[in-house]
């Protein structure tokens, strides 16, 4: 018994150490070309960046960009569904080559992946709530239950700064459900997505009453150390502003909207 538990403990310890050790990777660009497919980590429940059409096909702003990256490399594209909580792990573990998942560029994330500058859009945090809840400012969330999606970069700030009681679910779908069921008085999430939700007749009676906070660029990311691949997508990303690709895509996915971030970037890179 003692011997068994001791070996058990040792192997447990070993597992822990391996998990901490991390791993090194060879150049990814050659792998992608040899494979003939670009594996893209993307969201499938995040309108209009990446979502499923009724036919089941994943479409969206990010998906169009993923296609462009793949075209540049001369390979096919495959979208691997990820969430905010696991997208960077998928990238680190090599399950995907690049994350194009409406992911915000934050200093913490920069420590573990290469963010691609310039970002292809920008977003911040806002809330969706029932009109009768009468939430007028962020401070009104103090002590209230607020639904969230796990892994969103603003969850902690909303809890720490505004005193909201964050209930974070695995995926936004569950958070929407919980909001509708009255488990929370608001859902804090990406402002672009929430604003779009209001057009859905199912959400009549709900509003996005607060001004966005913590705006951050939305960027693609590749693994640390993939310098060639990173340089390639950085050039590509700059070209998208030069040649008007992002403006076209904004017209396609956010009809009638011209975000100040896009205007700024176009002016900078043209």
């Amino acid at each position: 018994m003692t011997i068994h538990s001791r070996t058990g403990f040792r192997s447990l310890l070993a597992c822990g150490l391996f998990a901490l050790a991390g791993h090194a990777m060879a150049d990814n660009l050659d792998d992608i070309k040899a494979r003939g497919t670009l594996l893209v980590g993307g969201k499938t429940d995040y309108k209009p960046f990446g979502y499923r059409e009724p036919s089941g096909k994943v479409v969206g702003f990010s998906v169009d960009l993923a296609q462009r990256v793949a075209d540049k490399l001369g390979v096919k594209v495959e979208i691997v569904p990820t969430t905010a909580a696991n997208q960077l792990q998928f990238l680190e573990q090599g399950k995907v080559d690049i994350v194009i998942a409406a992911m915000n560029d934050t200093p913490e994330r920069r420590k573990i992946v290469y963010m691609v500058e310039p970002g292809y859009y920008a977003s911040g945090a806002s809330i969706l709530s029932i009109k009768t809840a009468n939430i007028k400012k962020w401070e009104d969330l103090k002590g209230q239950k607020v639904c969230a999606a796990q892994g969103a970069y603003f969850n902690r700030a909303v809890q720490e700064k505004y005193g909201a009681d964050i209930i974070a679910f695995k995926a936004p779908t569950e958070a929407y459900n919980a909001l509708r069921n009255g488990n929370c008085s608001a859902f804090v999430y990406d402002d672009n997505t929430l604003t779009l939700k209001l057009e859905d007749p199912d959400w009549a009676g709900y509003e996005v009453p607060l001004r966005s906070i913590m705006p951050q660029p939305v960027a693609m990311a590749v693994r640390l150390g993939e310098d060639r691949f990173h340089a390639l997508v950085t050039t590509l990303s700059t070209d998208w502003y030069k040649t008007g690709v992002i403006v076209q895509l904004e017209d396609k996915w956010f009809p009638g909207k011209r975000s100040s971030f896009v205007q700024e970037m176009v002016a900078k890179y043209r």
Partner: protein
Amino acid sequence: MTESIARWFQGLHERTGINLTVFYDSFDAARFVSGIATTIELAFLCVILSLVIGLAGVIVQGSPSRLLKFSVNCYIQFFRNTPSLIQLYFFYFGLGPLIAVSNANGQSVPLVSNFAWATICFSIYAGAFNIEIFRSGVEAVPRTTVEAAESLGYTRLGSYIHVILPLALRISFPAFSNNMVNLTKLTSVSYAIAVPEILYASSQIWSDALNVPEMMNIVLVSYVFIVSIFVYAMGRVEKALRLPGIGL
């Protein structure tokens, strides 16, 4: 003291990249500790409730009424044969919205919280197993002992409480103890409905600090620690209940 520990772990992060925020970031530390407390609270409530369900169930199962027996069997079959994650989703998203009241905003608010649903769900799940475990114990009590109790004038309930259950509990204790260890670990499933237990707290921390491997190790060690204490306590109870002389 705590400050120097915090400084050491912060230094560890800067030197090696091993980022154990729970030891130096007070916000993360607070949510992790409250996660441990929630897990222990949830496990404790579920153990007690599932024990009550198990005892009540086994008494009803031994009753002469066929309808009662049938309903207990239905309950056992239903909850033993469905995954607990599905049950949790069913209760929280399926049943929860139906049991609601309107609040001042005209929004319907569920009466039962996610923590309460987790407690209910895990208790009846483990309770179903407990009934079966105790039944095996009841069936192992020698027929002659039961007859002796009856001939001494015990009522059916009286013989259960004073003769059968005390023996049956001791016989089935190892199996019961196993089930309770599983139940303690099962509490981590409530992560799915955002009950702020250890796994949930950790996922919040690793989403912010992006230290997944470190937090996974901490979660694992925390569970080893909590379950070990629980197993030790169950061992002590088993020893205290020992009846020398009849091999129990």
